[in-house]
């Protein structure tokens, strides 16, 4: 059945005037090829310029437009209105984060967590000379860490994580996946130095491999696997005299 219009119910919140978030409904022209982000852009352009959300690339790679769509954390640019006919489509900010305004969450805590796991190459040779050229790394060695390097920091996994919901200080799925990305890189020799940053708090042990993080990841990253591997490495580190790492 052809639909001419569709309703979007958008969470609105301005701390200066609102006691609590409220939903506001907009009716917009519907087309088959529209994603939720297109709908929000239509509202902002033509109906209500005061609706606030983040977006940029509209191709699922910049990670800006994470939002809750009909209850599930999704990228607004990757979810089609046609999958929610006849509507309404309910759009809310990602849970497990403070809300700054409307759909805009405060991700300061993630930025700190990301930096805390030392997501950079820690090499024996602190600053190898460029003239020495490239490290050799075979396709199989790249494959070791590749999937964990695909994280776009979109925060969907934090929104889905039942541990974060209870323990906000938990380093969390994306940061652990990125720590694992460097741990598994043949150019990296951080060993315990990075592992300690991840297992320093007890929260990682509360993760019971529910796998919500991996299920919502729009890029096929498997943070749950990274968390399990990290726990395993950490346990080895306690049991084995050489620290269990390499």
């Amino acid at each position: 059945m052809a639909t001419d219009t569709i309703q979007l119910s958008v969470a609105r919140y301005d701390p200066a005037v609102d006691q609590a978030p409220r939903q506001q409904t907009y009716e917009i022209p519907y087309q088959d090829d529209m994603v939720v982000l297109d709908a929000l852009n239509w509202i902002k352009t033509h109906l209500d310029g005061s609706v606030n959300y983040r977006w940029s690339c509209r191709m699922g790679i910049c990670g800006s437009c994470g939002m809750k769509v009909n209850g599930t954390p999704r990228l607004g640019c990757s979810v089609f209105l046609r999958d929610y006919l006849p509507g309404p489509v309910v759009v809310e900010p990602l849970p497990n984060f403070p809300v700054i305004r409307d759909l805009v969450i405060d991700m300061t805590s993630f930025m700190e967590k990301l930096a805390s796991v030392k997501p950079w190459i820690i090499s024996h040779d602190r600053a190898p000379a460029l003239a020495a050229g490239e490290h050799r790394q075979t396709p199989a060695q790249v494959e070791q860490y590749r999937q964990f390097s695909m994280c776009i920091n979109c925060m969907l996994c934090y929104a889905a994580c039942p541990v974060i919901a209870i323990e906000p200080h938990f380093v969390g799925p994306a940061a652990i996946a990125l720590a694992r990305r460097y741990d598994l890189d043949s150019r990296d020799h951080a060993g315990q130095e990075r592992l300690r940053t991840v297992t320093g708090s007890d929260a990682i042990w509360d993760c019971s491999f529910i796998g919500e993080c991996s299920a919502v990841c729009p890029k096929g990253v498997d943070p749950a696997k990274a968390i399990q591997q990290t726990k395993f490495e950490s346990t080895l580190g306690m049991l084995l005299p050489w620290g269990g790492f390499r």
Partner: protein
Amino acid sequence: MAVEIPTYDVLVVGGGLAGIRAAIAAAEAAPKLKIGMVSKVYPMRSHTVSAEGGIAAVLREPDSFDGHAYDTIKGSDYLADQDVVEVFVREAPLEVIQMEHWGCPWSREPDGRISVRPFGGMTTWRTVFAADKSGFHMLHTVFQTSLQFPQIERLDEFFVTSLINEDGRCQGVIGFDMRSGEIQSLAARSVILATGGNGRIYAFTTNGAICTGDGMALAYRAGVPLKDMEFVQFHPTGMPSTGILITEAVRGEGGYLTNADGERFLTNYVPNKMELGPRDIISRAMVTEFEAGRGLKGPYGDYMNLDVRHLGSEVINRKLPFMRELMGEYMGIDIVSDPMPVRPVEHYMMGGVDTDASGRTPLPGLYAAGECANAGINGANRLGSNSLPECLVFGAAAGRAAAQDAQAVKAPGANPIGGLVKDERKRIEDGFLERTTGDQRVGEIREDLQKAMDRGVAVFRTKEGLTRALKDLAQLRERFARVRLDDHSRTFNTELVAVLELENMLDGAETIVASALARDESRGSHARRDFPERNDEKYLAHTLAYHVPGGQPRLEYRPVRITNWQPQARTY
């Protein structure tokens, strides 16, 4: 009550590949300096993230610096400054290795060496890549690497509205933190602009929403010329619906471009290069075929087929997985079994803030790098995979030069800055945020700007079309004067950001149209139907567009610098 003004030695505006590279270079050059990195988005959202195909660099025999330089200069239709190109090609491999040492997951050969792939306009295989997400991996690598430098202080989601230009020197910026909406100054001994291009002035573009040319407009309004703005790159292969980029690597890996007759029509345009011809020529060939009725017809207009079926799923999954994902998601097409529909799409601004090879602008204390800048390597047409090395080479150069500069000058004084902030507060708060008169919507003016640019300033241009675009812009300016926001809140007001971006877009568009109207020749991406030939006698020169408050830009010309390669007919 004296409010302390945050003061930096080096302040980088923009957190994409060029900006982060500049910040790290400054930190490494002078570890005691305090470096600020301001960005209107979190750095990993920057548009570098959408670069796909790869980064050109001379890594090994039999490739040569001369080869990369010649390809770049010929690709530029001889408008590149050849001394700068020579610096660029020598630095590019070092930057690729630096990225490797920082952990970039480059695609590799079975023996572990970095792989290279062919790219348009390059005579040999020299494009290094990370599958078809090269920009994404480079941006995240360099951003994560930057986190280990405590002297780099980030100001995420801070929007810069003007440069502080005092006593003939750039001494910082004024802007606002988007969370508080508080307009404030950031003082600096030197400032680097790395804010990207302004492709969003077009409706059909590969560029993300943030590509509004803010740094170009900031410099322009501060009296710095924008160079060669008429040269706008149209990438041959955009997704017809959204404009999402379909990487040139598809053709690099052996994809065919075919018309409605199933013919590889490039035999009639670039017979020796075919699908690996340069972007300007292939985009013109496609439009010419459309006009001759040989395009395929779809819901989004004429298109061509880009076919990789003969490559097989193994190669596609290993080298072009993102293309398979994007075409599947947005067009419902599996590229293993069906050709991809594509059409030319606005992609990159060759023009930008006038700089030298160290990123210096004519305004002391101000530097620029990346797409927002024009150091002179791209001329009238950039070759694919030359923009990522451009960000790294000139980002690093600007970072080093700005660090050196910062150590030689005194900290800016607070007195003039206080007055400037007051003026800026008035301009923004009275002019936009709190204003309750006016009848024009930000988004609707922006849409009409985009339509005007798509219509009048595209692959082929005429005096009539450009003149009409100029009139359109004048009308849009009038409407802009009557703009009224729906949102008067100070908290994360993206409509306020959008109206200031729109102002920047109007400034950028104006320089493009004025520069294009004045160049009565065809060169590289600037194809005038009324002047189809290149005219070296008159136009072997860069256009410099200077801001004239309330009027049209004033244009000057500067001769191209030629070292070893005399201009020749550009055939492929």
